[in-house]
């Protein structure tokens, strides 16, 4: 397994040369790696993160407000004029004879059954 003396010296010279001419990463690559480091660093506050969080909170509030308003309106319509509600919704079915059957198909979905 031993190397010949001259062969060993030649290889050592070449290893030394390769170490001197080591390939270097580009500045662009280094910058991208730094960006990654900042992006996943624990506790690092990203720019405008507070604004994003605030908007999400506000958006959540507006969604909740919209749902509440829709629920109140639905209750009001149903309570004040149930006949009007029934006629409007079911008028499209007056010539057909359907019953709503609640059951589970093989796909565990509710289904309509014609009778």
């Amino acid at each position: 397994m031993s190397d010949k003396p001259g062969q060993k010296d030649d290889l050592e010279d070449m290893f030394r040369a390769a170490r001197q001419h080591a390939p270097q990463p580009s500045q662009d690559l280094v910058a991208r790696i730094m960006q990654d480091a900042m992006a996943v660093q624990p506790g690092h506050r990203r720019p405008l993160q507070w604004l994003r969080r605030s908007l999400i909170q506000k958006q959540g509030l507006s969604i909740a407000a919209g749902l509440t308003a829709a629920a109140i309106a639905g209750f009001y319509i149903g309570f004040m004029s149930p006949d009007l509600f029934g006629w409007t919704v079911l008028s499209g079915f007056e010539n057909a004879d359907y019953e709503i059957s609640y059951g589970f198909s093989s796909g565990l979905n509710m289904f309509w059954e014609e009778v």
Partner: protein
Amino acid sequence: MMDPTPDGMMSDESDEALLVRYISGDTAAARLLTMRLTPVIYAYAYRMLGRSSDVDDIVQDAMLRLWKHAPKWRQDEAKVSTWLYRVTSNLCIDHMRKKKHDTIDQMPEIEDDQPLAEDRLQSRHQSQALHQALLELPGRQRQAVILRHLDGLANPQIADIMDISVDAVESLTSRGKRRLAELLSDKKEVLGYVR
């Protein structure tokens, strides 16, 4: 770990200590680790693959894994450099499996803006000839030779990185060097050897 960049040398702190600082939100530690570790694994991946565009992606991926793994880092775990070499090795090996093509013709020249004196030119030719020859070695031999003779790691650390015994490392480096000597023997005169 060897530290070839001036920025990375600005701190005497170990990689492990810097990683702890990084976890606690220290931006300077992130920069020091980047400047210290990136050139090392970049050179390693470049020598393993010989393709510069893929090397960038692999190095960025390896470093991203380090940042993400950092909060789970245990002090008694392997050295940061060993862990990072292992991740980079796996990414390089995956890449070689996916792209089983001949990379020798695609080996780019190493860019060097400095004026080339004659001995520096000869040294550069030697370096490029060695890189070409390395790419002709079987993957495991190439990996062992690079880690031992270009990155200067000790055999036990190489054994950890490659997940093999120290004896196996010695065998791989020995066979790799013999094969390199054969591959380079025809180019001696071109490379300036007059022995």
